[in-house]
């Protein structure tokens, strides 16, 4: 740790004189990239200022933006897969707007070449994006943690190593994760089941806020997290990138490497291999370590691509493997245990360990394997036909603290396999309307061994959908409709823990029509207005129907209800955004109404007293899954202002109110209001350091004062304010751009507890964490 500190001082000392010496250049160059033929925007294209070696990737709206450059003549090199590269000369005055059109290679060579792998199309909706530097600064963190920088996105945590994303107050089964174009099907039977994905795979993470069931299917009520790997490169030359991350708090070390090539001389083939390991020891709060909170993670992915004559085939295989320690002090056996733990100001001394990497019971082992095959054929006159098949297995073992004879066994084991088939056709514009029509089928099986928590089940889901977009000048309209049908059968004993109880096979049928309508309008001043109305749906999940037992670390007896209906939501949202100019940002407001909202409710008797389920460990507060009508209303905002050529001020705000409209009570486990203020200082480039940025930010999280104390085991903790700082720079090393950054979270080592962390009952949250990150590209194609 002292090593990191010393290094950070060294960096600061080296950088400041440079800052003083360099002259202020405060010009700006920005614009939009479009297809010359149909005027569609081109997100993800690369623009390079040759003279400055500065590279920019266009955002989701096709915009690019260079800040703080000197006046003068520049050469722009624009490249985009599937389009002819273009070189543009430009004279930059104070503020220069330049729109650039690219010519598609497929139209140019009429089918001899192949249409490019375009970024996956996203619905016309409010989105948050994590890419470039912002994404790099989250490397080494889990997905749930990383996404918290996007306003309106939070995480429900179970201790330091397990976090699940929350979008606009909704989490768990209401947030869908799409990993490399495949809907992630993991075990989501509890909040201690984190998404089984390696964020290093993604070169871009997009959060679609609000219901998007038409495009992504059931469950996408709260929103969708899209993890997208960079498209394969059909360009000769072995190349890649190495990422190294070290973190002081838990002694985390992460390594991620990527290597790729297009081996044949015609560049019809391409491959990529990627691997990640993450190893961490016990996490530390400001005053003590948390025993048994380490993790070990080993992930790998392989991509193979072939494209020729309008054909495109892609094979994707990935494997995610982790072993996660669970804080020993959270291992409560009974209500009394839990209450004692809550009353203690800090965990017992035996649970305040030192920094070590040992993982004991309780722990989890999770493996997630995914295979995907995608075939596409471009028909010149009509469009692209896509076929995709994916197979994924999610395997989980949970180990509790047990007596000696069970020392070699898990207590719970789940094995979920999911196969998804997709056929869809993306047609070329007809009268200005372009879109996608498709069908989708899902087959799922779940088995378990060990103790009962949820039963065996199998399910089939079939769907058909159409989503179309019309665009004229500044106006875009999108509409879609989808029909889903799901059949499910569970297999269980009537009394699950009694081996003599007879089997039953209850069956379920769920179906729903969902729809979406969205519009976006570009104002001449660079502002863009969006509005969406969308219907989403979610059939009840297996745990909501059949769970029966005590969830670990929670000491509550949960019961499912097999008569639950499917949830259906109406999501209205409106937003304004701007991505060019001095003032940039996104502001959105939303209103969600959910019929048959499923949640876990404490059971009360006729006198209003809590009901206890008597077990061998005494009485457990009894909880039951019930359905109510719910309403979520809120706003997210991110506003940035370029104060001077060097200073940029950014503000973020997120608020959400969630009610049970049947009783007018606030729902529990909803994020509290969150405010962030950030000052960024951009240093002028020097010979050794390019694109150097220094951030200083403060985040205030208010107390969640909208829940009554009797709605939870412990009252909501106090609000808190954290201070973070970061510095990042690019070092030119033998023609390669190395990215180096140093960041400090919770700089003042403030002790706090977060309302959304379920282990706030047992310990404080994390103390100061210093992270050092280095990214090293290699291979001739990656020279800058």
């Amino acid at each position: 740790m002292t090593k990191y500190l010393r290094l950070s001082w060294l960096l600061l000392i080296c950088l400041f004189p440079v800052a003083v010496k360099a002259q202020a250049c405060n010009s700006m160059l920005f614009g939009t990239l479009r297809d010359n033929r149909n005027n569609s925007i081109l997100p993800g294209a690369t623009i390079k200022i040759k003279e400055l070696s500065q590279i920019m990737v266009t955002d989701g709206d096709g915009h690019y933006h260079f800040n703080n450059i000197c006046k003068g003549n520049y050469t722009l090199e624009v490249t985009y897969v599937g389009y002819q590269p273009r070189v543009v000369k430009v004279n930059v005055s104070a503020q220069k707007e330049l729109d650039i059109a690219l010519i598609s290679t497929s139209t140019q060579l009429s089918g001899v070449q192949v249409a490019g792998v375009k970024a996956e199309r996203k619905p016309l909706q409010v989105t948050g994006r994590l890419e470039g530097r912002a994404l790099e600064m989250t490397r080494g963190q889990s997905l749930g943690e990383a996404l918290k920088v996007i306003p309106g996105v939070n995480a429900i945590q179970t201790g330091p190593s397990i976090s699940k994303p929350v979008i606009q107050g909704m989490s768990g089964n209401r947030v869908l994760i799409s990993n490399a174009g495949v809907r992630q099907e993991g075990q989501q039977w509890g909040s201690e089941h984190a998404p089984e994905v390696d964020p290093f795979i993604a070169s871009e993470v997009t959060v679609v806020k609000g219901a998007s069931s038409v495009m992504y299917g059931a469950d996408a009520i709260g929103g969708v997290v899209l993890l997208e790997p960079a498209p394969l490169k059909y360009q000769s030359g072995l190349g890649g990138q190495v990422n190294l991350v070290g973190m002081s708090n838990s002694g985390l070390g992460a390594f991620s490497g990527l290597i790729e090539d297009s081996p044949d001389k015609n560049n019809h083939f391409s491959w990529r291999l990627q691997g990640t390991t993450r190893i961490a020891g016990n996490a530390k709060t400001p005053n003590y370590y948390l025993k048994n909170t380490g993790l070990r993670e080993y992930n790998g992915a392989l991509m193979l691509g072939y494209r020729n004559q309008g054909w495109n085939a892609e094979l994707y295989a990935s494997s995610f493997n982790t072993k996660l320690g669970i804080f020993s002090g959270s291992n409560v056996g009974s209500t009394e245990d839990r209450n004692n733990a809550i009353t203690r100001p800090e965990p017992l001394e035996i649970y305040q360990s030192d920094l070590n990497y040992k993982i004991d019971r309780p722990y989890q082992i999770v493996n997630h394997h995914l295979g995907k095959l995608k075939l596409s054929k471009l028909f010149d006159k009509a469009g692209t036909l896509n076929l995709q098949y994916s197979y994924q297995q999610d395997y989980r073992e949970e180990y509790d603290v047990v007596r000696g004879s069970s020392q070699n066994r898990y207590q719970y084991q789940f094995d979920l396999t999911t196969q998804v088939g997709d056929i869809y056709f993306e047609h070329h514009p007809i009268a200005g309307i372009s879109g996608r029509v498709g069908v989708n089928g899902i087959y799922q099986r779940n088995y378990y061994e060990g103790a009962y928590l949820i039963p065996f089940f199998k399910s089939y889901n079939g769907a058909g959908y159409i989503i179309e977009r019309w665009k004229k000048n500044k106006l875009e309209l999108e509409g879609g409709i989808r029909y889903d049908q799901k059949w499910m059968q569970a297999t269980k004993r009537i009394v699950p823990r009694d081996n003599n109880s007879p089997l039953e096979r209850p069956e379920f049928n769920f179906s729903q029509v969902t729809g979406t309508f969205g519009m976006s309008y570009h104002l001449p001043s660079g502002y863009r207005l969006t509005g969406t109305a969308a219907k989403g749906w979610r059939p009840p999940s297996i745990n909501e129907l059949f769970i029966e037992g005590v969830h670990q670390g929670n000491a509550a007896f949960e019961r499912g209800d097999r008569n639950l209906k499917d949830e259906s939501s109406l999501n209205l949202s409106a937003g304004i955004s701007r991505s060019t100019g001095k003032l940039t940002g996104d502001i959105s407001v939303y209103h969600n109404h959910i019929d048959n909202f499923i949640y876990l409710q404490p059971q009360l008797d006729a006198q209003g007293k809590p009901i206890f389920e008597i077990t061998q460990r005494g009485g457990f507060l009894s909880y039951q899954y019930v359905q109510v009508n719910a309403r979520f209303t809120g706003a997210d905002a991110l506003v940035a202002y370029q104060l001077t050529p060097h200073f940029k001020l950014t503000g973020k705000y997120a608020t959400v109110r969630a009610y049970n409209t049947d009783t007018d009570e606030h729902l529990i486990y909803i994020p509290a209001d969150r405010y962030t203020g950030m000052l960024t200082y951009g240093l002028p480039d020097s010979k050794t350091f390019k694109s150097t940025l220094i951030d200083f930010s403060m985040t205030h999280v208010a107390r969640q004062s909208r829940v009554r104390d009797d709605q939870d085991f412990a009252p909501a903790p106090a609000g808190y304010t954290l201070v973070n700082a970061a510095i990042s720079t690019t070092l030119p090393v033998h023609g390669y751009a190395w990215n180096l950054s140093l960041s400090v979270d919770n700089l003042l080592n403030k002790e706090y507890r977060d309302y959304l962390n379920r282990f706030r009952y047992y310990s404080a949250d994390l103390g100061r964490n210093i992270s050092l990150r280095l990214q090293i590209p290699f291979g001739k194609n990656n020279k800058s």
Partner: protein
Amino acid sequence: MFKNKFKLGAIAATALVMTFSACKKDKEEAPEADENELITKVSFKFTNAANAADVATVTWSDPDGEGGVAPTIGTLNLKPNTTYNFEVSEVLNETAKDPDERNILNEINEESYEHLWVYKPVAASIMTVTRTDKDKNNFEIGLKGTAKTGAAATGTLQTILRHQPGEKNGTEAPGSSDFDATFPVRIQ
């Protein structure tokens, strides 16, 4: 026409899935319930120190495990102002197939250095409980002890089995509860 095409597509998508799903053999039965930490029966035997023929036994029993039918909890009937020697006489998991796993008391005995029985009479005046056995680290276990009753009264006795692997220090706080039951007590 559209409907037909839709149907055809849906069949094709399902067929695509089915082709690959044939490889794994389906398990059709629910697995044996394997609740290796389950306790379904616990008994305590109280013997009058002055009269070995005067024995009181109290039992907690929940044969179908967590959930299902609530456990049956017996009442402990003792004489006033009397000293009893007590022991934990039975700890069973009656659902276990393997007879070795059925008797949990043996295992608690073998791992006595990881276990601690805690006794909490309410009101405190109804009896004084003292643990008399020690483990290899010289910490009390509580599988055996004495109970000295007070004047005639009614109350409760909470009995807790703490599991403290690598954490046992003679106090109740570390570890977690494997068993926690409260028996009604009548002293008359």
